[in-house]
């Protein structure tokens, strides 16, 4: 229990430091928030007044604490572009990103468990070699290139799938959503699975050479039984960390992939925010993502303790 409290305090500290960095970096970035409102016929005096009313003339630390105080009350401010609350905009975009990222994470994970276990067990077998090749390809090729190639092939040439967006005009059916999801989901799943398979393969290899595997063989257990009853649970432990760390991508989204497929998620929102110098939005998305990174790590630690008895009762 004490450990959990300690860990929570650590998380809060981390978030605090992240908030300082986020604020400082945004302040240091080029661009002036006032310029968003400036029109050619405005007088110098008017612009100065505007600057003052936006709180930009106050000392930096004061600005920071005002901002932090508002965030703690759940107020991320309003977007400079359309003056709508940042939080509302994030929440609007959240479902699209979660659907896309969630599906590709789950699919990638399932594929990885099957192929990772299999190729770890049959190291250097034919399927292992083929899997490894695909993994290297999956890790190496940029998602935007793969996405564009898919669009070119399946949408432009073969007219099989819609290339952009989440829904067709006026069509809100589930089938339509699935059609739109196929390509971006394939791109992300391929990338995710490639990465996960590498982790699972190597942890399976390590586990397969453990003594308890030999012992179980010596006790007459089937190979498949050993794999699923003994090796799987141990080999999955490192995956907890990997999945915990990718939790934030559920929300921050695959910025590039969303851009390529014009997927209306948070990744796209972030890109728009940056190109428009929309500071409240940039900071909001950054803080939101940071929160999820911290939460993901915390969750991974908790899950580790749940699944690994050595950590639960151990000293680490």
């Amino acid at each position, binding site marked *: 229990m004490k450990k959990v409290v300690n860990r929570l305090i650590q998380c809060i500290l981390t978030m605090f430091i992240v908030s300082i960095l986020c604020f400082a970096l945004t302040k240091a970035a080029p661009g002036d928030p006032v310029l968003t409102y400036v029109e050619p016929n405005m007088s110098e005096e008017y612009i100065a007044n505007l600057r003052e009313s936006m709180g930009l003339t106050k000392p930096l630390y004061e600005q920071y604490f005002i901002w932090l105080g508002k965030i703690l009350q759940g107020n991320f401010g309003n977007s400079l572009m359309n003056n709508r609350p940042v939080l509302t905009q994030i929440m609007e975009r959240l479902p699209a990103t979660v659907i896309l990222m969630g599906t590709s994470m789950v699919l990638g994970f399932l594929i990885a468990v099957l192929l990772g276990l299999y190729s770890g067990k049959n*190291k250097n077998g034919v399927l292992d070699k083929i899997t490894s090749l695909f993994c290297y390809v999956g890790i190496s090729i940029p998602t935007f290139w793969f996405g564009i190639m898919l669009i070119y092939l399946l949408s432009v040439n073969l007219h099989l799938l819609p290339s952009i967006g989440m829904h067709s005009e006026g069509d809100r059916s589930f089938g339509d959503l699935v059609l739109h999801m196929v390509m971006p989901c394939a791109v992300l799943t391929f990338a995710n699975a490639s990465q996960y398979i590498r982790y699972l393969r190597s942890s399976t290899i390590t586990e397969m050479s453990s*003594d308890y595997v*030999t012992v179980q063989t010596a006790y*007459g257990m089937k190979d498949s039984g050993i794999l699923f009853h*003994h090796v799987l649970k141990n080999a999955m432990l490192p995956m907890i960390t990997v999945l915990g760390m990718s939790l934030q991508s559920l929300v921050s989204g695959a910025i590039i992939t969303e851009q390529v497929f014009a997927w209306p998620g948070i990744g796209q929102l972030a890109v728009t925010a940056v190109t428009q110098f929309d500071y409240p939005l940039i900071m909001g998305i950054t803080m939101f993502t940071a929160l999820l990174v911290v939460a993901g790590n915390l969750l991974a630690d908790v899950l580790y303790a749940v699944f*690994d*008895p*050595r950590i639960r009762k151990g000293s680490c």
Partner: protein
Amino acid sequence: MEKLLEVKNLKVSFFTDRGETKAVKNAGFELEKGDFFGIVGESGSGKSVTTKSILKLGTSNCVIKEGEVLFEGRDILKLNGKELREVRGKEIAMIFQDSLSALNPVYTVGNKMVELIRRHNPVGKQEAERQALELLTAVGIADPAKAMRSYPHELSGGMRQRVMIAMAMSSRPKILIADEPTTALDVTIQAQILHLLLELQRKNGMSIILITHDLGVVAQTCSRVAVMCGGYIVEEGTAEEIFLRPKHPYTRALIASMPRVGGGSFEQFLERDLSDQADSLCPFLNRCKYVEECCRKTLPEYYLAGEKHRVRCHRREEEV
């Protein structure tokens, strides 16, 4: 006495990127019902690989090139997967040196014991639990119910080795192979475990193959001993013959190198010579004090120094 297990002409090699490593060049021995058979030898002499091969437990790069392992007349090496699993654990069980890594860290002792009992016996979960408690009591665990709920890392080394023995005993095997079972334990616990093995052997009429590099352990327990060196069994006989009338220079050197209180100079310790050596010659050639011309030409055959005391050496005279 009834012949239970017969290992004949066993040859095992490891294949790596650097080529073939011959771990066992020629090993053969017989095990009778009720035997407590010891295999001794230095690290790398092939004793562990020999016994693992009895159950075909090698890693994927370990190949049994030749030989037969006859268990009750059937060659284990020729069994198919299902038949092999029937023998493994049920007829021949095994315990290992490192009891911590031999038990799966993420499951409780009880969980795995119940699974194991039910694999070889068609009993329900409750009956299996009852049997597990009985087995744990039989191997001298004071609070078996608590041990059942424990994870391997929560038990002491001696407790874990007792759990391993209980698991091995769960199907009442005819042969128990113990691969350095006491090496990781301190001396008091070691004595307890050896005592337990002796007791179980007597009670169940089981045969035990004990692999160790500790001659003291062999002297305390074994009725017959094989001495391995460089992939060959160089001498085999009763414990008395091996300890009191050793014939092979390697056996003698091994016995002389045993540390004794107040005695023994370090000069007697065996120096290892790992230089390459022809496969078809005596494995002790490079280290032997009594090398003769014929040693450099042919591999010695066994000669009988007693009724069942065989020695693989060219020298036959009783001289030191």
